[in-house]
């Protein structure tokens, strides 16, 4: 039995309705290696029940680019929760 790999640090940033739902502007988390963007969202939803109403329409950006739910995260990534945008 090999030991599990060490957890992987990621920086999470919350904006707008996600910020208010989480009650945070950001946090640093250690997550399992190989976690996807969608997996991280599920993890965050469990951790911050206030995010539930924000989940529909939420997109994820990694290092300032939108990514699909199945994108794998890497150590040191900055992951941003992007509710529906409304600039202009």
């Amino acid at each position, binding site marked *: 039995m090999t030991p599990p790999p060490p957890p992987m640090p990621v920086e999470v940033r919350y904006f*707008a*309705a996600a910020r208010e739902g989480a009650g945070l502007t950001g946090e640093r988390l250690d997550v399992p290696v190989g976690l996807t963007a969608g997996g991280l969202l599920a993890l965050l939803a469990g951790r911050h029940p206030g995010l539930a*109403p924000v989940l529909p329409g939420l*997109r994820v950006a990694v290092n*300032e680019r939108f990514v699909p739910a199945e994108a794998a995260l890497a150590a040191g990534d900055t992951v*941003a929760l992007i*509710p529906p945008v409304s*600039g*202009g």
Partner: protein
Amino acid sequence: MAGVGSTGADPRSFEIVRAPIRADAVLARVRRPGCGAVVVFHGTVRARTGTRRVRYLEYEAYEPMALAQMAAVADAVCRTHGLEALACVHRVGRLEVGEDAMVVAVASPHRAAALAGVEAFIGRLKREVPIWKKEVFEGGAAWIGTPDDPQGERSTPTGAAP
């Protein structure tokens, strides 16, 4: 960020600011001797949306990503529409009714391209650039585009929604 037949200053310019936007400065960034058409668009805080009376708006941006996305959208739009210059300044923080939230200026040799380019840039900005507005009205507040926004005006995500 390569220019299309530009001379002089950088033909693309993007900024996020906290103070009132000076439209004449945005205009000055796009003027070019080869361009017979310059269009300046002001997105302004309206006194009401639907039946709601607006007290004020709060804008928030993910600044580095918003600037990068503006540049990417402008690149594509300038290429498609043959614009020679595009500048966009978006304001964040608290905005009162009548204030400009955004000013976009474009320059093109021809009118139709300039007007179509403005429309294309703003259409994509409203889907792809991480800026948000919270409307504070009599009796409540709502992030526009989210499920707690009773008036609709939903954004339509084009990227991946997990």
